[in-house]
């Protein structure tokens, strides 16, 4: 070394740069929580957002645990993308990947559906006949869309005769755009519905309404359209302050809210829809209708005895503590995601907050310890109000707004930055969550 400190030179500079780089890399590492040694047998039903994220995190925390996931679907669906697909902004493949893309190599994936859960015997039977026993069970099955509950409707109608149903999957979301795009060209009466049950992402029916309104506006055909939002009760969103804001935006956009109109059936031939209202059944003509069916826990959960008996009767959500997500009668059973019987939290953003809580409780339980990790009902909804703008609405169990960037990103303002986050960062954050890194 001929270089001396204090005299800038090419070689000295290079050494400095490399040293800084090495220091930066060393500094980026975070001390990992200590691993717990165990031979526990952990069974996760569902390898969707919640199941995959938890599996990736447990692998890091537990040394020696046998982790098995059960999911009959090979495809992983990025459900927050469905609203964009149904507005023609993304292709169906935007939301589709393979379940195996997201799972760590040292877990077992059973590509089958759970057919029976016996929480007394701690056994789960699969549709194919195999029976799995467990020490700890995490139910992350998601929910079932009860399309049969809408009389006269079946999924093969989606995309034709002015019928959309974006919740049913990426392909149905794309078909929804086929029907919706004709509506934006030809105009007529549009009815945008939502069910009276608990549902995943209560913002999605609003987003679809706003997006179709905006696309028609930009195509110059909005004047030919009569747009109605069919609310299930006398509000437009579960959080009162957000509901009021949406009411004002609807006023601004010329979208008519029809309160307490719950879709019960359609006649696709004559394009008429039936709604339950406080005044009885009413029929309405439509040129485009967006159908979101009632939503319930999957049959296997409803038949397992794990559901609430006295809350959400007929919907079957799991009877868990709303802070720890631990089952109230079976302490080795947890619920994650849509299937959990908690007042809020049927979104991917909720899953992101729920997964670390269940992880902490499970790891503490295995280690013979306790934890005060708690889920506060956090839910986030980038409520798109036009192509290019959204409101970043975040709230908790108490219907309080919980903005991530208070004073910087206003939750009830239509902002470009909120749209940028949805467009650029949301799927990336979701993917990082699946890998257990966010």
């Amino acid at each position, binding site marked *: 070394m001929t270089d001396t400190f204090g005299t800038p030179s090419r070689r000295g500079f290079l050494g400095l740069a490399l040293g800084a780089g090495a220091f930066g890399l060393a500094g980026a590492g975070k001390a990992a929580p200590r691993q717990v040694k165990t031979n526990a047998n952990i069974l996760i039903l569902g390898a969707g957002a919640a199941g995959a994220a938890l599996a990736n995190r447990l692998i890091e925390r537990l040394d020696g645990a046998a982790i098995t996931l059960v999911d009959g679907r090979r495809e992983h669906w990025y459900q927050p993308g469905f609203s964009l697909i149904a507005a023609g902004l993304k292709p169906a493949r935007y939301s589709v990947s393979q379940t195996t893309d997201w799972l760590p190599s040292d877990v077992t994936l059973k590509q089958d559906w759970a057919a029976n859960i016996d929480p007394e015997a701690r056994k789960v039977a699969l549709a194919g006949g195999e029976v799995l026993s467990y020490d700890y069970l995490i139910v992350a099955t998601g929910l079932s869309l009860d399309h049969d509950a809408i009389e006269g409707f079946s999924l093969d109608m989606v995309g034709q005769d002015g019928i959309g149903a974006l919740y049913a999957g990426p392909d149905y979301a794309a078909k929804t755009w086929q029907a919706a795009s004709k509506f934006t060209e030809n105009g007529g009466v549009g009815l945008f519905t939502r069910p009276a049950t608990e549902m995943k992402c209560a913002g999605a029916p609003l987003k679809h309404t706003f997006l179709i309104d905006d696309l028609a506006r930009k195509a110059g055909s909005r004047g030919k359209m009569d747009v109605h939002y069919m609310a299930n009760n006398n509000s437009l969103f579960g959080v009162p302050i957000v509901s009021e804001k949406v009411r004002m935006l609807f006023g601004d956009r010329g979208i008519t809210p029809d309160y307490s109109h719950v879709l019960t059936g359609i006649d696709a031939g004559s394009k008429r829809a039936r709604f339950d209202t406080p005044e009885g059944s009413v029929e309405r003509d439509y040129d485009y209708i967006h159908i979101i069916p009632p939503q319930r826990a999957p049959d296997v959960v409803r038949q397992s005895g794990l559901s609430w008996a006295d809350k959400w009767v007929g919907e079957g959500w799991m009877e868990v503590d709303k802070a720890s997500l631990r089952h109230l009668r079976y302490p080795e059973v947890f619920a994650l995601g849509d299937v959990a019987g908690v007042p809020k939290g049927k979104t991917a953003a909720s899953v992101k907050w729920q997964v670390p809580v269940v992880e902490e409780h499970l790891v503490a339980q295995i280690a013979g310890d306790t934890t005060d990790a708690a889920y506060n009902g956090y839910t986030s909804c980038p409520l798109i109000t036009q192509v290019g703008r959204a409101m970043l609405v975040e709230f908790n169990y108490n219907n309080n707004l919980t903005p991530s960037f208070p004073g910087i990103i206003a939750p009830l*303002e239509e902002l470009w930055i909120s749209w940028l986050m949805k*467009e650029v960062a949301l799927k990336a954050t979701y993917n990082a969550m699946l890998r257990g890194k966010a």
Partner: protein
Amino acid sequence: MQDLTFTTLIAVFEEIFGRGLFWAMVFAALIVTALYLFVLIRDRAVSWKKFLWAQLSMPFGAIAAVLFVQGMTRSGFADIGGPIDAIVLLAVAAGGAVGMAILVYTIESLFWRQGGEG
């Protein structure tokens, strides 16, 4: 957002661009910055002639950065909805301008060294 740590941020950026492209871009930015510092140290002076060209390139960098972001996100100037949006827009433009200036200055210094100078 929960636990917005540096490692989370890195993980998110890896997902946005793909791991390879993200680190290639970080590496490219570091290289250009390092080369810029290198020519400053080598020449032991700022060349105001080169700096003039660098400054003249700044508006183009600013406009290119804004159009790039808008193009990638299907949005436009009409979507600016509040003060934070204007700040983000200006930040994107400023980033593009400074990046372009550094790039132009560095390229000039490395490849168009006039005889006798430095």
